[in-house]
């Protein structure tokens, strides 16, 4: 299939495909970070993760509408406001969920799966009743649209760059929070030994609630970023859930680095395959590949070998 292209074209194909893969990579990391915190650190399987993302997307949509109608002069910066609001809204909903539901289920991880699935159904219907069944699209400020030409053929999309930058910023922030701050230490202490952590004076309930809230809040920001590339409807969240879980599991649930590495592997595989096959088959082959590797190496890509 290369015979149709010249060498120069081929190299630009690979450049652009690499860039497409990087965008997909950023998207995966954004989706998976929140889940990696909740699943990896707390052992909770949050099937409503997609719905938390969509809440962030709706918040972004309404923020954009608000700026459009009331503060058109500041429209250029609304996206930053929207992301903060999305974080707060999804985070608050997450904390409420933890308090009402999840905290009763820490000893039954499989049951968190069922309960959060129930929550996702409820949220979908609430979105549909409140925001309407139609999909909404967010209008982006002018500076986010278009692309920067690198060569004649190769162009770099600005919103892609934005997503990547955002991903790096959030990842760094999460890493600092989890591995450098005293709060992060508390989280890890609670994960490793809940009783002991409680005994040394850590308020484990509070740590759990804020951790869950943080994970959901990041999901909200991811949803906000998603409005740039996709649409927002009551059921859009469902589309992402399988991919997201696979990324986290594939990376080895407890490792942030693993999540990033697995997002990179899966996104590059998928975007490369997409170029040679049709979108459907690329997706199928990527998923099968991930499943097969998980069968061979069930602990995921990165996991610390521990004694038991």
């Amino acid at each position, binding site marked *: 299939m290369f015979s149709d292209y010249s060498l120069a074209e081929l190299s630009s*194909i690979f450049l*652009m495909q690499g860039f*497409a893969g990087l*965008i997909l990579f950023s998207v995966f990391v954004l989706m998976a970070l929140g889940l990696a915190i909740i699943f990896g650190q707390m052992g909770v399987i949050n099937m409503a993760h997609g719905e938390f993302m969509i809440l962030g997307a709706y918040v972004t949509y309404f923020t954009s509408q608000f700026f459009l109608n009331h503060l058109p002069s500041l429209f250029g910066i609304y996206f930053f406001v929207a992301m903060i609001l999305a974080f707060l809204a999804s985070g608050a909903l997450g904390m409420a969920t933890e308090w009402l539901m999840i905290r009763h289920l820490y000893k039954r991880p499989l049951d968190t799966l069922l309960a959060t699935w129930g929550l996702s159904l409820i949220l979908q219907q609430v979105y549909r009743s409140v925001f309407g069944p139609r999909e909404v699209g967010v209008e982006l400020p002018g500076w986010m649209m*278009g692309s920067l030409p690198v060569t004649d053929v190769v162009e770099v999309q600005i919103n892609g760059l934005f997503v990547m930058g955002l991903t790096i910023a959030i990842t760094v922030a999460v890493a600092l929070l989890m591995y450098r701050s005293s709060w992060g230490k508390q989280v890890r202490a609670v994960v490793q030994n809940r009783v002991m952590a409680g005994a040394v004076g850590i308020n484990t309930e509070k740590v759990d609630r804020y951790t869950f809230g943080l994970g959901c809040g990041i999901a909200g920001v991811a949803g906000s970023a998603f409005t740039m590339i*996709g649409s927002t*409807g009551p059921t859009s969240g469902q589309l992402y859930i399988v991919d997201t879980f696979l990324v986290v599991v594939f990376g080895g649930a407890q490792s942030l680095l693993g999540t990033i590495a697995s997002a990179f592997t899966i996104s590059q595989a998928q975007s490369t395959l997409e170029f040679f096959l*049709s979108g459907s088959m690329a997706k199928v082959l990527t998923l099968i590949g991930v499943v097969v590797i998980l069968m061979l190496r069930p602990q995921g890509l990165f996991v610390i070998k521990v004694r038991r």
Partner: protein
Amino acid sequence: MSTHQDGSDKFSATRRRLLKGLAALPAAPLLSSTALFPSRAFAQAPATSAVNTTGLAVTDTDVTVGILHSVTGTMAISETGSVQAEKLAIDQINAMGGVLGRKIKFVQEDGASDWPNFAEKAKKLLVNDKCAAVFGCWTSASRKAVLPVFEQYNGMLYYPTFYEGLEQSKNVIYTGQEATQQIIAGLDWVQREKGAKSFYLLGSDYIWPRTSNKIARKHIENFMKGSKVVGEEYFPLGHTQFNSVINKIKLTKPDVIYAIIVGGSNVAFYKQLKAAGIDLSKQTLLTISVTEDEIDGIGGDNIAGAYSCMKYFQSLDNPNNKDFVAAFKKMWGEKTVIGDVTQAAYLGPWLWKLTVEKAGSFDIDKIAEASAGIEFPKAPEGYVKIHPNHHLWSKTRVGQAQLDGQFKVVFETPDLIEPNPFPKGYQ
């Protein structure tokens, strides 16, 4: 449906074997059923026993029909407009005195975007509620699921969506276009107007886009001299990452991107197209899957410049449509938009009313037979007429998407196009 009327219906003899419902038709269907009740046929309110011999839900004062669409699930987005249009039509008909002097009541069921559920609900509407007609379904899959039910329990379905064709039933009236009606005129137009020679075909991965692209490819390769297809690709429903295919498009530089992407994927596709710097005012893009409804989600600025090919646009400039749009907005709000399918759904209750009145009966068999040749001059899209194959004669139009989310009609076929659900040469 008929096997006897015009000669253009070459396939009817064999088609008859496909459709079990046909076997039940009397040998001499031309003996119009109205002949059995000649005196009462067009009376203001004929006796129920005369117009309803098969136990449908018809009383002296009203008649029950069914509305069967998804109001929950992923398809709720698309089907909402159809429900609104059908309710509007029913309201209007009732305001004019109903059908055969009977007021239309409706039972609404939720298909919940779940095909088997459609079958279950269809059965309920026919068996339990004895609906005289059902307006509903949207996706091909849901129609395929209910079709055996309608044939088994002898119901009448008015199906509004443009679809892939390859089907015909005594028990269904297809008020949307079948694939050839929608595709061929558009392709001819783009070749003529834009001098298009190379086409890149895209679609969501299921039967309608695939069948439509197949017809498009056949037409491009066999009937359009010097034109070729340079790429063809499908994506799972709900897919949101189109960067790879956009890169391929940039490399192959087709004259026309021919896109049949549906649902939420649309939004991602057009946004990413724009972000990738593909300017739709310079790159010709022709789609058959984007109506005003979809633009609502995509955003006018993301798709402005693209061409859409279908039979109806909200901006059509004719008195019928002006009345229709005004009535629709009055009932459902100023901000609602009306797409092709919504309009086709609106035709359903009207066509049924006209057919019932022509047949002088609510009986399904008589309606099935009387349908051929029914004309509806007040249709928002203009004049339509039911073909003996139960599809509609209709014009095809090309509209260019505008920033405000409306289409500017740039082309309209001069004549009504004959529906041809089993096109020879496209198989």
